[in-house]
């Protein structure tokens, strides 16, 4: 059934620049059994993402508790994050700075003043009975993130950012319904950790675009060192708002908006959106219900059954009774502080990606892979390339040998055993014709375990350039011993020399295959 949704996404991308597409639809195992009476509507998928990124602060948003993941339950708590009577919040300056950093990188405007509001609801993992959040004066507003169009890597899609606001996280409720009892345990370690909620415009048009947006956002947040973005640890979570615009006989019909909550992996974001697109088509066909007939609904995603499902809803829509938190003063964000943060941003990933293509002639894919590895890898590449004189060859060495080693040895690029200048020198020897790829790989392997420069490594491995005279002698010997090859080449089969190259290497491993080949051909021509 994923194929149908895939068709929605792919066809839509194809149709995005032109006319809407037609959808051929065969529901399988859908929540309603009704088949679509009409199976062809031009459909536009409308998606907006709300991303919660946990900021990498030392301490929580309003108290001094640590934010480390995976600690024993209720050990990183204090009267403030436990919501004890009389406790008061104090804003964490680092969280403000990280938020401004993110906002600037997302092309947001940073208001001169931001304030705190209480969002009120009762739940056991929210011990104060309200969450301190930001309602009408978020710390970042009105920005955008350009993403690569998944349907066409040469073009970009401009995704608007409505706002990004700071808020405190809630704790975790763990429901234990084993043995016929229903018991809930509460861990408040996470309570009060700073979250930046980044809200996109409903500008995404497919699950693939949503995934691309999320990866680009994750890349940016990790590049800026504002968040670890570990989805499995919950430091990056996404809610997807999804609905469809159907063109029914020239009339635009919108389906009710569904917010799919707490998507905790890229894969689930895609699958939930794909599923929801299908579900909404069937539901609309079934009931004819449009956005005017139903309020926004909240759904969850069930990983096991691969379905979205409606979460418990109150009769009336939730009223959070937001009001300004009287325990906290508004925060002034002075221009010079913002300018200082702006000037410390450095080059952002999207710019680096383009620059690597323009400055070094890398392909999009290669530039993307390097940029995705983060700032340390970008530095490594640029240093190595400047020593090698051949950025493309350098990048392919990085993508093959270096990245393979990182994976195999579980090391960081920052502490990679072959420093970038050394890799550059090694690649330079290949470019110069002093080493062939196979020998260079031997040297690379040697350097992984020996902190020596390239020439020392060559000496240690007994690799030295074969002199012209030695080469001539070697080739003459080979030709004398293999008259058939001489005959074949003279008969027009040049590739016959290939058989001798291997033999030459067997006699002298340092012999450069290219040089051997040329010398052999020259000698045969002279004969």
């Amino acid at each position, binding site marked *: 059934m994923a194929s149908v949704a895939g068709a929605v996404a792919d066809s839509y991308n194809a149709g995005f620049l032109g006319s809407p597409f037609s959808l051929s639809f065969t529901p399988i195992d859908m929540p309603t059994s009704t088949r679509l009476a009409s199976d062809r509507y031009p459909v536009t998928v409308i998606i907006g993402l709300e991303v919660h990124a946990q900021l990498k602060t030392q301490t929580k948003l309003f108290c001094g508790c640590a934010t480390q993941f995976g600690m024993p339950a209720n050990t990183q708590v204090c*009267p403030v994050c*436990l*919501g*004890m*009577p*009389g*406790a*008061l*919040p*104090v*804003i964490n300056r680092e969280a403000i700075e990280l938020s401004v950093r993110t906002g600037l990188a997302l092309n947001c405007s940073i208001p001169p003043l931001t304030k705190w509001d*209480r969002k*009120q609801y*009762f739940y*056991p993992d929210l*011990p*104060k*009975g*309200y969450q301190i959040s930001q309602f009408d004066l978020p710390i970042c507003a009105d920005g955008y993130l350009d993403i690569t169009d998944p349907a066409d890597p040469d073009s970009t899609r401009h995704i608007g950012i409505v706002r990004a606001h700071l808020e405190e996280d809630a704790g975790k409720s763990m429901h234990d319904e084993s043995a016929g009892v*229903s018991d809930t345990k*509460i861990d408040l370690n996470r309570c009060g950790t700073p979250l930046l909620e980044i809200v996109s415009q409903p500008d995404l048009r497919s699950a693939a675009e949503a995934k691309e947006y999320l990866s680009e956002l994750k890349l940016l947040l990790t590049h800026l060192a504002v968040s670890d973005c570990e989805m499995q640890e919950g430091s990056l979570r996404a809610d997807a708002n999804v609905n469809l615009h159907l063109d029914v006989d020239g009339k635009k019909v919108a389906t009710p908006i569904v917010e799919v909550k707490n998507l905790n992996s890229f894969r689930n974001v895609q699958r939930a959106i794909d599923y929801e697109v299908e579900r909404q088509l069937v539901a609309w066909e079934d009931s004819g219900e449009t956005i005017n007939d139903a309020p926004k609904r909240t759904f969850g995603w069930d990983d096991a059954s691969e379905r979205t499902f409606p979460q418990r809803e109150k009769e009336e829509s939730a*009223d959070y*009774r937001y*009001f300004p938190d*009287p*325990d*906290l*003063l508004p925060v002034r964000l002075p221009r010079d502080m913002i300018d200082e943060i702006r000037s410390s941003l450095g080059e952002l990933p999207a710019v680096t990606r383009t620059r690597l293509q323009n400055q070094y002639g890398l392909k999009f894919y290669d530039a993307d892979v390097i940029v995705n590895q983060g700032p340390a890898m970008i530095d490594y590449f640029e240093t190595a390339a400047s020593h090698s004189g051949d950025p493309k060859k350098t990048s392919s060495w990085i993508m093959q040998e270096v990245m393979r080693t990182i994976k195999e040895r579980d090391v960081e690029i920052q502490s990679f055993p072959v420093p970038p200048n050394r890799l550059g020198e090694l690649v330079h020897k290949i470019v110069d014709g002093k080493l062939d790829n196979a020998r260079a790989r031997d040297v690379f392997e040697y350097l992984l375990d020996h902190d020596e420069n390239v020439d020392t490594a060559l000496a240690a491995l007994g690799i030295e350039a074969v002199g012209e005279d030695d080469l001539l002698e070697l080739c003459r010997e080979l030709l004398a011993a293999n008259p058939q090859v001489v005959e074949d080449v003279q008969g027009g089969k040049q590739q016959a020399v290939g058989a001798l190259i291997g033999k030459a290497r067997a006699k002298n491993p340092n012999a450069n295959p290219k040089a051997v080949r040329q010398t052999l051909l020259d000698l045969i021509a002279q004969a």
Partner: protein
Amino acid sequence: MLDSTSTILELLRSGDATAREVTEQALRAIGATQPSINAYTHVAYDAALNAAEAVDRDRKAGRPLPPLAGLPVAIKDVLCTADMPTTCSSNMLRNFTPPYDATIVANLKRAGAIVIGKTNMDEFAMGASTETSAMGLTRNPWDEDRTPGGSSGGAAAAVASGTVPLSIGTDTGGSIRQPAAFCGITGLKPTYGRCSRLGLVAFASSLDQAGPLGWSVEDVAIGLQAMAGYDPADSTSVDQEVPDLQSAVATDNLQGVRIGVLRDSIDQEGVAPSVRKAVSDAEKVFTDLGAEIVEVSLRHSPYWVPTYYVIAPCEASSNLSRFDGAHYGHRQSAQDADGAVDESLAKAEPLEAMYRASRAAGFGSEVKRRIMVGTYALSAGYYDAYYNQALKVRRLIRGDYDTAFESVDLLLGPVTPSPAFGLGENIDDPIAMYLCDLFTVGANLAGVPALSLPAGVDDEGLPVGIQLQAPVMQEAKLIAAGAGFQSKTEYHRLRPSGFIVS
């Protein structure tokens, strides 16, 4: 002796009394008055005696002692104490002991004060008579058929009944000043932000402020000096040095001080003649001291009470959300002892039923009333008409104060429309009770400091108070004027009949 902070400190310093003697005497006085007055929710017999003995040992050993070493004080039960229960006079927190001391409690302890107990109050500081307490009502030491006022009624009665020379109350809409007036003592509400609110269980966060109660201005100045100061753990506390308040006490010359009399409030209908007389007598005293009296009006004063009774319940409805039975405090299941489920909760989810049962049983009716009012006023569709509108009016009220303080140094007026009212008199009439705050809530809405001084006695022998208000951070001006007033008057020396003299 227990009616003067400065005297006790002098006796302790000179060695004429030990801290243990003073503490024992305070405990005896509590023992004698508690059955009738019920000023306390908790008395820390052992802890107080141990602390007193430690002070005596230090003094004997010649170690340097902090300024209030050995002084017994009582703390309103809305302020967190790590070694005593903090109940807010509510069933919700009947068995609750916080894990930490409020900053002002810690400050007082560091200054050497001995916390002798916690004082009764209206539940969660909501009320003006201490009758909404779940720990039983407190009686006025001047007339046990009358209320001591509220919400710091226990703190005022603790002083007025001679158990401690100094107590700490909190004032959200008049809760220090009104009970001080009803009990014939002096009470000071400092500038919002002068004293840390960390550990003050919030009723209305933008209005709450703790302050001292004692017989004299000198005593409350000593108390404020010890408790006040910037606290980085309270974002709303003000980062400003506390001036030397004792030197302000020494001032008895008010030459050049302009005092604005709030004539509108005095002339208001329903203000008792004894209150009018106290204010006009005070004008004469201040004139004799060299002050210039002018008439001033605060234009939006008719809107004080309505504005207050929107903002305070809104904040309260939010602040009291944390009392839900889940983590601490009273928890009640929807089932009674026989397993029968309350009809109104039968259809609720178990979690919601627990919340509802716990809050229904844990809170008294005045607290519930304010939670409901506040919840309503913050609801979608009503927010602009109530809360937001109240914030706008609050800005106008502050503007009135700013304007007034451009031409005068202090404002003079009544504290309450009448002296102490009888027990039960207003308890079933919330509006009448709310009108007790008529003259006091302005200072909270504007954040300015205000002082309640004993300034008269009515025909029935009940104390009558007057109120002085000053610009923000100008407590020293209040203290200077108040001390000047008390140098020329004897009202702060009057004691209830049967007062324990030791």
